[in-house]
């Protein structure tokens, strides 16, 4: 794993450990959320987030206090996810339908319909588009930070995000993931309604 591009520094004094830990604890909820979007499964996500947290702790000597620790830990988590995936899923291609069934099964049945629709639609995106969109559109990262996390060019992240946005809108409008024979356009309508409600609640 390469952790050198973000916050590379020679070594911290062990007195820095306490400060490092405090910052790391604050980031745990964000690591859990990012892991959830990568794995699509709450249990696997927490395993991944815990592994990433430990990796970050073990690598704390290479982190420079005051640099972007959120981006640094997200990069560690992402690297962990893909290296595990390469190891365990190389032979068996993940069956998209099975993944979607799992996702539906573990979903909170009380969750608003629109959120469920969005989760389903996200699953239909290519992995690199999904992570770019999540980092920029939900994680609050700048394109430059997302590029560092993903180890690619800024322009690549920009184009992935914009393709992801177009594809998501198209999928939601067409109901292209075809669940329960839902009528086309329903997903987008419920998302527009939900978003309106949320925006109203926020302001």
């Amino acid at each position, binding site marked *: 794993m390469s952790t050198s591009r973000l916050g590379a520094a020679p070594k911290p004094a062990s007195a820095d*450990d306490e400060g490092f830990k405090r910052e790391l604890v604050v980031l745990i909820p964000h690591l859990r959320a990012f892991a959830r979007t990568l794995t699509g499964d709450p249990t696997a996500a927490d395993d991944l987030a815990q592994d990433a947290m430990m990796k970050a702790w073990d690598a704390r000597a290479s982190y420079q206090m005051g640099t972007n620790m959120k981006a640094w830990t997200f990069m560690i988590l992402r690297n962990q996810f893909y290296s595990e995936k390469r190891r365990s899923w190389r032979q068996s291609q993940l069956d998209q339908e099975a993944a979607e069934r799992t996702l539906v099964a573990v979903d909170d049945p009380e969750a608003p319909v629109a959120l469920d629709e969005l989760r389903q639609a996200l699953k239909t995106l290519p992995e690199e588009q999904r992570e770019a969109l999540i980092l920029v559109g939900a*994680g609050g990262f700048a394109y430059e930070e997302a590029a560092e996390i993903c180890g690619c060019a800024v322009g690549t992240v920009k184009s992935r995000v914009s393709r992801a*946005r177009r594809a998501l809108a198209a999928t939601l409008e067409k109901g292209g993931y075809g669940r329960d024979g839902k009528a086309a356009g329903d997903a987008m309508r419920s998302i*527009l309604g939900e978003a*309106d409600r949320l925006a109203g609640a926020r302001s």
Partner: protein
Amino acid sequence: MIDSTDSSRPKGAENKGEAGLEEARLRQQAIGVKLRHMFDEVVNEPVPDEFLDILKRADAKAADGAA
């Protein structure tokens, strides 16, 4: 602002031009709001004790090593 009076608008591919662009913009905005909401939902969950336990154990180990 997100306009949800969706039923009053013409639907489908024939709706091009400015209205179509505005529609697309609203949809992207709505997707963005939902995306952040989905992410924040997990962020706002209480962190399972396991996380802090693991960190505590690692911390103790580091302290041992330093002593």
